[in-house]
């Protein structure tokens, strides 16, 4: 049984990592091909850092991800508080259903529906160009919002209402009581929502493809590159991203393990 388990796992990992390892391998190719290896060279990395196009796309992606995640985090946290506090069951249920729509709909439908909204609005306003940075930003905030709300809401449900009331009884104004008592309890949900929004925005291709023109993000740039024959410079870029993600995951895992050990420590002692 154990050997069987190990074999299943090994096969799955080979399958998952084969294209990624080949990508790293061919990023060091001295030739222009991504399938015939001629010799080791770092020239594609050099080319990558001298190409202003790619660097601009990288910068655009980061700007978009940071702004959309920030807006979605603020709006989403407020919305979660609103949904948590509201008395009307009907309103609560409606808001939760609407929140689920962008998560359940396939990306292409979300993208197409937003594109049609922008086309429609553009025609009403008589604009010749419907899509720009702002439409892209709106689209990203829209698909990020549910993830923030659904991360914050469970944390709110876990909080003790009487703590907030106690703070006010002891003389804290509501806003101060909120920041001193409620926020520390829900901050893990806010942070994980923000991180999720940021990474989803970084990685999104389909929705951006329908709601942007002119403002090129990295996934959009990769898409236009893969329409032609791809040179290994894209592989070089992807390899750098791969290593960066690996490092981030390792660091966050080590941190998590340490905090868990710290939390477990005093209990044992």
């Amino acid at each position, binding site marked *: 049984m154990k050997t069987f388990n190990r074999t299943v796992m090994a096969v799955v990992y080979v399958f998952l990592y084969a294209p*990624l390892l080949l990508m790293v391998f061919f990023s060091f190719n001295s030739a222009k091909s991504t399938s015939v290896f001629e010799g080791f060279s770092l020239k594609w990395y050099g080319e990558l850092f001298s190409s202003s196009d790619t660097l601009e796309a990288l910068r655009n992606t980061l700007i978009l991800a940071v702004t959309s995640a920030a807006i979605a985090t603020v709006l*989403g946290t407020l919305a979660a508080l609103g949904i948590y506090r509201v008395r009307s069951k009907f309103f609560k249920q409606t808001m939760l259903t609407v929140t689920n729509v962008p998560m*359940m709909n396939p990306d292409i439908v979300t993208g197409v529906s937003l594109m049609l909204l922008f086309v429609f609005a553009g025609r009403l306003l008589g604009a010749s160009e419907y899509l720009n940075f702002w439409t892209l930003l709106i689209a990203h905030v829209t698909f990020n919002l549910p993830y923030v709300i659904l991360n914050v809401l469970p944390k709110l449900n876990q909080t003790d209402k009487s703590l907030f009331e106690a703070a006010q009884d002891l003389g804290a104004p509501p806003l101060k009581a909120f920041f001193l008592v409620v926020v520390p309890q829900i901050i893990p949900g806010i942070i994980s929502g923000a991180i999720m929004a940021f990474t989803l925005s970084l990685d999104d291709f389909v929705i951006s493809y*329908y709601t942007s023109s002119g403002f090129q993000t990295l996934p959009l740039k990769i898409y236009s590159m893969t329409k032609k024959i791809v040179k290994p410079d894209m592989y070089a870029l992807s390899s750098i991203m791969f290593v960066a993600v690996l490092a981030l995951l390792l660091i966050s895992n080590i941190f998590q393990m340490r905090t868990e050990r710290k939390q477990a420590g005093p209990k044992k002692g």
Partner: protein
Amino acid sequence: MKRSTNVFLNAPYAVWSAIFVVVPLLIVVVYAFTDAEGSFSTDSIVALWEYRDNFQKSILYSLVATVITLIIAYPFAYALSKTSEKTQRIQMMLVMLPMWMNLLIRTYSWMNILDHNGILNQLLTTVNLRPASFLGAAAAGDLLPSMPLALKPATFLGTPGAVIFGMVYNYLPYMILPIYTVMAKMDGSLVEAARDLGCNGFNVWRRLILPLSMPGVISGITMVFVPSVSTFYISQKLGNGKIMLIGDTIERQMQTLNNYNLGAALSLVLMVMILVSMFIMNRFADSSGEGGIVV
């Protein structure tokens, strides 16, 4: 005072989601039932019949891909949940890592591997193996008729098999994650109790592990099926432009032909189809969830 705070908290999101979630869906419906001039017309809806093949292919391929991912992910998740806590943590990271790479890059990399002069064909040449086709593929001989069969490279790209393969590859982690989560939470003493009460291996799985893991399986199925059925990049690259799925037809109407009405009609059908299948799945999940409690 309290009422006004609630309004202040709820209003921004309510307005935002009304304009950017609800209205766009209504506009999709409006576009589907109008023509380019904006007057009522059922032309786009009638034209959908011509795309029945694309719908059929999309549904068939993504169903096959979902079943394959389930067959791979289920034993994998089970085996993983039986390892030590440290191994589980490291392996979960390894499963999630490829998901952090952009889907476009991963798919393009496979395209390179499966290409005519790609790595797989190079490998097959060195070991002198020549599968003539890949899962119902057209024989490579059609493309290079002058070469003796033993020297012809196998054709992978442009076959249904390659597209399904791409779906399985890209969405496998989405199946592993939810199934692993329920398996890891499962109480091991239940299995022991079942065994003590005389249940044999297969029955432990059928009457205990399977019903308890059902919620994970259901969400895994949705998480793989929905992106598979609506994909256009995978079919574009691994289908080599020969296989048009429903996502490809939407993409073509919206981006190349600028026929927004037909694009909207196609999207509408795709959306309704997915909502209906999710509704059915959830009913199914509810009833089996109850069955899981009454072991």
